[in-house]
């Protein structure tokens, strides 16, 4: 059941909420159990087999986590470590089988020229997200960051349907205290904020992302069929898809945050106007923030620590202050960055395109870090110079991100190659590749590409507009007009405080209704979220 479907909006969600609030009046325990049951139903809706696949994995993870906890309390560190490694291996193998076996067989056929055929393995929905969350939980139990948990707590944490399929990727320690505190009663404040988040998300997805896709998809279709792409069409493919995926995924996230809020639960922020980022480092602190947080905490940091220790043991200098050697940069920064982004690429999908996409971002991040360390230190004296540098940063970042998104979107690298040829003007300056398949006017293009671009580049985002009501976990304003204080988010979260601020008023109710109305009108066709395939 998609969040943007009539059956979800008008049947499933209202029914689940009504029963939840009724149960909440008499028994919180049963209200929370109801969420687990509803989540299983939600997950089984596509294909009941999904539940049969995921349930054993949840059970095994729970048993392993319990064992880990016991071993930890007994102080048997070696055994605990072994269980942790076994648990991680199990989850990676589980994900690997369902997600990558088709790709690996194909890759083996490419390399060895063989013709092996594998019966198509079904891909349980959201398996990448669910797996990462379970791995994080095992690591947290091992590290003592999770003290105690019951089977019900664990199921609630893993299966909570607002974030089950495509995140945000949450930690047990930030979710469970909320569930334990939740009143499970109807709260008009939470519902008002929830409806607003959901309406913003719906309009982003149904009205913007799906419209933009109508211009973008034909170009990729042409390119993959071997057609050539003109300069303008190439850039529309790149920028257009970047806008599409931003509005699609951040729209989904807004809806997820909104649905969770109905239950009185705040999910962590996942997007903070990423297309306004002034560097690639900044981009990853604003784009899919919970994935960045996961990769940093569980891959990059441990790797950097391990490498630094190894280097120190060899008597080589660390990487700081006056000791900035090229060797240390390569070993302690470039290597872990590339590896982390490679993992990120592979996690996104089984295909060469995702591997190239991940490594490319690793290269971008390394270059960005290298520039920060070795580039000229500019002294910017006045505001105008700073603004100019920032604008240049935003444009360069956007060009890098959009180019990488071409690879992300293309069914294969040949298709990306054709789009890139177009972007470099090798096949004329025009719209060839787009005009041939759809009849579009320049005015339409201007509205549907430039319009969303303007929104993404200039307008405040959903969380900023709702900032006075903690729309996402930790997204708070400490006083009137003060900048939001974010737990682990970027520090420049609200570089400039936007004037637009949601409040429970008649005017905002009318505005949100209008937004929801537009979203519902455009709900027409079935349109899956891009990130639900991961």
């Amino acid at each position, binding site marked *: 059941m998609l969040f943007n479907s009539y059956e979800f909006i008008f049947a499933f969600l209202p029914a689940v909420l009504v029963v939840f609030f009724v149960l909440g009046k008499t028994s919180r325990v049963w209200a929370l159990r109801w969420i687990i049951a509803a989540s299983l139903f939600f997950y089984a809706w596509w294909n009941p087999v999904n539940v049969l696949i995921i349930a054993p994995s949840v059970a095994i993870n729970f048993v392993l986590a319990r064992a880990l906890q016991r071993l930890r309390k007994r102080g048997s560190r070696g055994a605990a470590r072994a269980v942790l490694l076994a648990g991680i291996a199990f989850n990676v193998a589980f994900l690997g089988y369902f997600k990558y076996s088709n790709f690996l067989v194909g890759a083996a056929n490419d390399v060895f020229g063989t013709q092996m055929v594998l019966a198509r393995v079904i891909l349980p929905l959201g398996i990448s997200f669910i797996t990462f969350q379970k791995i994080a939980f095992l690591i947290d139990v091992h590290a003592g960051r999770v003290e105690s948990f019951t089977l019900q707590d664990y199921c609630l944490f893993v299966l909570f349907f607002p974030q089950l399929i495509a995140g945000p990727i949450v930690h047990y320690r930030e979710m469970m205290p909320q569930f334990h505190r939740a009143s499970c009663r109807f709260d008009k404040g939470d519902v008002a904020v929830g409806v607003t988040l959901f309406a913003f998300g719906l309009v982003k997805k149904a009205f913007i992302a799906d419209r933009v896709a109508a211009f973008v998809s034909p170009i990729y279709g042409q390119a993959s069929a071997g057609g050539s792409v003109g300069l303008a069409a190439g850039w529309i493919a790149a920028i257009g898809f970047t806008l599409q995926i931003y509005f699609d995924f951040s729209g989904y996230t807004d809806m997820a945050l909104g649905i969770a809020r109905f239950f009185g639960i705040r999910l962590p922020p996942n997007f903070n106007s990423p297309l306004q980022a002034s560097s690639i480092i900044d981009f990853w602190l604003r784009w899919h923030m919970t994935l960045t947080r996961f990769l940093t905490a569980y891959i990059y940091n441990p790797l*950097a*620590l391990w490498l*630094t220790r190894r280097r120190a043991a060899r008597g080589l200098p660390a990487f700081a*202050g*006056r000791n900035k050697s090229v060797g240390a940069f390569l070993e302690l*920064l470039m290597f872990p960055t590339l590896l982390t982004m490679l993992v990120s690429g592979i996690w996104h999908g089984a295909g060469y395109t995702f591997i190239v996409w991940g490594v490319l971002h690793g290269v971008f991040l390394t270059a960005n870090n290298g520039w920060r360390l070795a580039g000229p230190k500019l002294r910017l004296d006045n505001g105008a110079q700073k603004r100019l540098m920032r604008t240049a940063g935003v444009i360069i970042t956007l060009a890098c991100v959009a180019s990488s998104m071409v690879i992300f979107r293309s069914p294969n690298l040949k298709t990306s190659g054709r789009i890139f040829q177009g972007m470099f003007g090798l096949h004329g300056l025009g719209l060839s590749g787009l005009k041939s398949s759809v009849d579009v006017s320049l005015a339409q293009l201007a509205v549907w590409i430039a319009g969303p671009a303007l929104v993404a580049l200039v307008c405040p985002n959903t969380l900023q507009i709702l900032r006075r009501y903690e729309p996402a976990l930790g997204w708070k304003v400490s006083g009137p007009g003060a900048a939001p204080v974010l737990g682990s988010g970027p*520090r420049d979260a609200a570089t400039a405080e936007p004037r637009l601020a949601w409040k429970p008023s008649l005017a905002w109710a009318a505005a949100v209704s209008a937004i929801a109305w537009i979203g519902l009108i455009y709900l027409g066709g079935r349109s899956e979220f891009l990130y639900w395939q991961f």
Partner: protein
Amino acid sequence: MTQILRDLLADDSIVLAMETKRDQVPGWDSLAYVSFIVAVEIKFGLKFGVAEVESFQNVGAIVQRICEILPKQ
């Protein structure tokens, strides 16, 4: 520890207090932080857990942890 960070960042004006946080010291970025932790580990002959390293809120938390580990060894 102040001396370790001074050497690392090549800045003799650094003075660490128990409540000093990373963002209060110019240049003490995440990479320099990892280098600092490893230098501290070598100096005191101990090893922190990966999760601990991330959880240290300020210099005092690191000192406290060292005081916990050392008597056990």
